[in-house]
């Protein structure tokens, strides 16, 4: 579904990514791992339109999306979550998810200001859908709390609920387990599986090996910007170069 080809990214004098390619199959859960500085988040940022790559292409279901802005990608069904969760802190939990429904609604400035009937109906639908997604991740009881006041683990869940509200085809998660304890991580694994079961393709960047080996169908290992290995979790676990890269790092 997502085909990343030959991405090279150069920042000033630093080669962050060197000819990296990745194919994410539809319905798979794909993981990208690697020691610190491997370029995983950079890759994600490029794929999700936050920066433009120096060279290489990206295709989403054979449509070339290289250089598309994040908002355009959202309309094409690609969404991501952030390593340092980017919530809308001043808004309530429910409102955060309602923003996720932005692409599923249409009222413009005029319709909203004049409170046209179409808009009123749409608002009601947005509110209901948003509550649905909060229930899906299990934080519906926190709907009215200001997002900035959420504990970190719940904040992660909120980000996922918000991303799901967009009804994406593919969701990219940047270190979703970062900062979670083992119980929360196990719950996250269950959630990721449920997301996949609903037909959404998942790709994640992660450091937590247990989560990755548990949940992913296919893994890409990066090291220092280059592709090191690619395969199923079992293949990666047995790959000597991967073991060396991780142990070598200390």
């Amino acid at each position: 579904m997502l085909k990343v080809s030959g991405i090279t990214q150069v920042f000033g004098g630093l080669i962050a990514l060197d000819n990296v390619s990745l194919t994410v199959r539809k319905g798979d859960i794909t993981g990208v791992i690697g020691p610190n500085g491997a370029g995983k988040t950079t890759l994600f940022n490029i794929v999700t339109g936050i920066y433009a790559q120096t060279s290489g292409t990206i295709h989403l279901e054979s449509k070339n999306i290289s250089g598309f802005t994040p908002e355009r990608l959202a309309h094409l069904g690609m969404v991501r979550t952030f390593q340092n969760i980017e919530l809308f802190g001043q808004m309530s939990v429910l409102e955060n998810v309602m923003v996720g429904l932005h692409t599923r609604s249409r009222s413009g400035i005029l319709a909203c200001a004049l409170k046209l009937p179409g808009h009123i109906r749409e608002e009601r639908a947005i509110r209901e859908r948003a509550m649905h997604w909060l229930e899906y991740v299990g934080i519906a009881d926190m709907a009215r709390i200001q997002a900035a006041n959420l504990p970190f683990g719940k904040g992660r869940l909120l980000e996922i609920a918000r991303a799901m509200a967009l009804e994406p085809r593919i969701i990219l998660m940047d270190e979703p387990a970062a900062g979670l304890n083992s119980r929360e991580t196990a719950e996250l694994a269950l959630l990721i599986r449920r997301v996949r079961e609903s037909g959404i393709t998942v790709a994640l960047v992660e450091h937590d090996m247990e989560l990755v080996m548990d949940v992913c169908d296919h893994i890409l290992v990066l090291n220092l910007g280059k592709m090191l290995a690619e395969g199923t979790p079992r293949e990666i676990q047995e790959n000597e170069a991967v073991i060396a890269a991780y142990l070598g790092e200390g």
Partner: protein
Amino acid sequence: MPLSWWKSNRRTGYWLNRDYTNYLSFLTSTAQVIKVACAVLVITLEEQMQFSDQLIQYILSGLSTGAIYALIGFGFAIIYNTTSIINFAQGEFVMLGGMSSVYFLTVLNFPLPVAILAAIILATSIGVIFERLAIRPIKQATNLNLVIITIGGSILIRGLAMLLWGKDTHAMPTFSGNDPLYVAGATILPQHLWIFAITLLIIIGNRLFFNYSIAGKAMRACACNRRAANLVGIDVRRMVMFSFIISSAMGSMAGIIIAPLTMTSYDVGIMLGLKGFCAAIIGGMSSGFGTVLGGLLLGVLESLGAGLISSGYKDAIAFIILLLILFFRPQGLFKKSETERV
């Protein structure tokens, strides 16, 4: 400052290993600017030979106001580099310099050097008080809050000045008389020379301070990465205080040396501040040659515009330039563009 810091800088290979890339890029851009300026100048001169005397006069007065803009711009750059705050009140320190020196000179009858010193001390004290009371205690340091507080501060200082010294414009006597010198068909007043000399001294002083003194380097460290500076033991809060002290001192000096040429009143701060900011932006918010060139360029363009096009729109010229730079090259004319990391 003890001698030890001086000695600590004289390592072998120091001069060889220094990073000259910024200088090189600066020189290349300057060369380009000079090339363009010369071309414009030559064309203008060729077409309007009879204006050449006037032209040189415009350029000269433009250079002297430009020097002032550069000084004010330094003030912005120094505070910005240490604290990431744009001190909207900077122009008011310039105003304070001019107004208070007039007061000390004409009302309290201090001799000139004493009046100047007193004015600088007054402005600097107010700078310190402002930093202490308004800047340091800010808990929610959002961009907007800081902008509003420094604007509030500038309004407060302006209000104080109006209260103390009224709304009239005041004239200040020149430092060493009014006998003009004639150079290349233009009239130079001694005050112009004072402006150039003092500005040059301040620029050199700045350079020495920031590049060779521990305090200066510490301030530069704060600019690059505040938390890291804190961790290596730099007292960031003191550095912030220093930056305010230096900026207000320089700003007030600028106000003092220009006051004899242009009248001063309680509300000159706004315009001067903005133009100084323009100089700083052109120079990429660096407290170096970029800002100097920015100031000079601005002063000359403004003067030429006022003389050749229209004097009513004179102020607008600086702002149009600033706007264009903000639109097309906000990092200034003299820096390479930087990539942003997310």
